[in-house]
């Protein structure tokens, strides 16, 4: 049978590659595969991995060769001294390098072991989430954005929800606000713990990885108890949160607030005075305040240069201004100072969590605005209108007045901003996410210039990039 089913003359297909195979061709191909006979040559040629290998040198164009060896552009950083051509090595670090925290590729131009120029190459994790956001309703939006920065899902959800609420003009009850503050601050702790774990591991302190992840487990267990999931929670939604806190949440938060500072003391013993750690981090990866401004670097790297700028203080959101906390600062802007700032931020976030624990207001955990809040379960059983209303909210969604809004909050990595454009429909016309990791990756050439390859690892870890956040 297979002999009859040859779709020959593949050259014709190549000339017109956009024509999809017809239904008969698809069936023939299916018969071919299920009959167990050998695939025709054109199938092999179009799907085999061999087609993706490097081309032989005599066939490759100049562009192909440049791409294989890594192309560098000259704009990223201008160096004064002209090194001799032969001494330069171009090294591709990544995208599968273990200490690049994901699929980040750095093209390093090396003079011996000294980095002369760096070009970050990103996009390996690009999945078009901003486009996806345009196909989801405002109620479904958090499911999408929560997957961007997967170490800080609550912050993404909160930012999206605040932007939507600003367009809607909806107020959120105090309890929902307090729950949001509690969850985002605990999320900041868990994100920073992951960071301290990976920072330690990248510099050779492998036990740090185990300790950091160990303490983080407490938080993840609490998140799971509250939201049902350890990450990608979809818990904070426009209008409030998805559900109230579980029974016994006070004990869990009290335990977190008690236990994590003990862990922090251990980390300080392990790293803060450690001569190897000091040698690897002090004076490494320096960035100045002016460079931070020019490159849009916010969050701990900015505060490590001595600039007192925290959106929780400057442009407070979700009622965070009622809680007392300090903004830790440092002055040198190097890897070590970023370490100190983040370590202190963990304590301050726990301080906020402890205050939320004491002052949690009673009341509803979502807004009473019936346009955005589905009717309670009990009403659905009794009332046809409630059932219809519930159905419409979850199928069509609610319409948001036309307008545009940029909402920024202080994420663990810096300013996280969502720019929402609505044209009066139930889905956003445009969702743009201004992510702190994207700005941080762009500034890597500044921090890495004229330093050793080993320092590059410390620098990458110190800006705490999440590649899902970079590529979106």
């Amino acid at each position, binding site marked *: 049978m297979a002999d009859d089913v040859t779709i020959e003359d*593949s050259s014709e*297909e*190549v000339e017109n*590659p*956009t024509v999809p*195979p017809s239904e008969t061709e698809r069936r023939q191909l299916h018969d071919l595969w299920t009959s167990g006979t050998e695939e025709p040559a*054109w199938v092999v*040629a*179009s*799907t085999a991995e061999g*087609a*993706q290998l490097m*081309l032989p040198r005599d066939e490759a164009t100049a562009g192909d060769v440049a791409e294989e060896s890594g192309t560098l*552009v000259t*704009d990223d950083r201008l160096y004064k001294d002209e090194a001799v051509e032969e001494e330069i090595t171009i090294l591709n670090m990544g995208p599968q390098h273990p200490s690049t925290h994901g699929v980040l590729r750095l093209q390093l131009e090396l003079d011996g072991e000294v980095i002369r120029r760096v070009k970050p190459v*990103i*996009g390996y994790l*690009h999945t078009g989430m*901003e*486009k*996806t956001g*345009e196909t989801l309703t405002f109620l479904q939006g958090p499911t999408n954005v929560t997957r961007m920065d997967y170490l800080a899902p609550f912050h993404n959800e909160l930012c999206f929800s605040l932007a939507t609420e*600003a*367009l809607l003009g909806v107020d959120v009850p*105090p309890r929902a606000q307090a729950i949001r503050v509690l969850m985002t601050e605990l999320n900041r702790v868990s994100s920073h713990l992951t960071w301290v774990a990976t920072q330690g591991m990248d510099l050779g302190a492998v036990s740090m990885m185990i300790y950091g992840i160990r303490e983080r487990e407490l938080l993840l267990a609490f998140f799971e108890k509250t939201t049902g999931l350890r990450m990608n929670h979809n818990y904070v939604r426009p209008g409030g949160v998805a559900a109230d806190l579980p029974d016994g949440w006070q004990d869990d938060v009290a335990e977190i607030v008690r236990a994590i500072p003990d862990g922090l003391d251990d980390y300080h013993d392990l790293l803060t005075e450690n001569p190897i750690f000091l040698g690897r981090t002090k004076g490494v990866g320096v960035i100045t305040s002016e460079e*931070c*401004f*020019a*490159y*849009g670097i*916010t969050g701990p790297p900015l505060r490590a240069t001595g*600039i007192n700028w925290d959106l929780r203080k*400057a*442009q407070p959101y979700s009622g965070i*201004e*009622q809680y007392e906390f300090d903004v830790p600062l440092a002055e040198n802007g190097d890897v070590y100072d970023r370490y100190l700032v983040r370590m202190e931020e963990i304590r301050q976030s726990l301080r906020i969590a402890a205050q939320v624990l004491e*002052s*949690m*207001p*009673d009341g509803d955990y979502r807004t009473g605005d019936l346009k955005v809040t589905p009717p309670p379960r009990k009403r659905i059983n009794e009332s046809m209108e409630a059932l219809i209303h519930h159905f419409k909210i979850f199928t069509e969604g609610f319409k948001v007045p036309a*307008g*545009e*809004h*940029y909402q*920024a909050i202080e994420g663990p990595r810096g*300013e996280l*901003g969502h*720019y929402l*454009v609505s*044209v009066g429909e139930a889905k956003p*016309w*445009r969702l*743009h996410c*201004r992510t702190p990791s*994207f*700005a941080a*990756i*762009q*500034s890597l050439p500044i921090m890495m210039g004229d330093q050793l390859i080993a320092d590059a690892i410390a620098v990458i870890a110190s800006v705490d990039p999440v590649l899902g956040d970079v*590529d979106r």
Partner: protein
Amino acid sequence: MSEQAPPPEEEVVVESARLRLAPLLAGLAETFADATFEESVAGQQVARVESARLVEFVQACRDAGFEMFIDLTAVDYYRRRPGPRYDVVVGLLSLEHNLRLRVLVEVDGDVPTAPSITGVYPGANFYEREVYDLFGIEFTGHPDLTRIMIQDDWEGHPLRKDTAVGSVPIQFRNTNKVL
């Protein structure tokens, strides 16, 4: 629960921040007579300028105190409004005055073109590459206008509204593009 009172001082602070900046925005409005200033949702400051004067305007903003570059993106109003199809959106922040400014520029054409602001804020580099990649808006004067998210030989610009959502065949290089 105990601290339910929204602190009244805070509103005063916001008010005064705006008042402090009023001369600054007035100064900008004076220099750029064709620019329009308005307040968006939640009192955010929005300025619309001519594409040709964007670099000049952004430079003036930076000199006036908007020291931090925050964001650059674009919106495609395909068949949604008369006139130019795209908005390029630049987000700026003044730490000293605690104020944000959003600068909108309308661009249009088969190959929409806007001036690059990398000369003023070098941080715009990656952002302009992203907009070029996903919207096909070209930035004149950009040092390295290449694709950043998608591979170089990809056809089309996915965030344009006339690009449909759906599956596309994976574009491997050097393969017979059948199936």
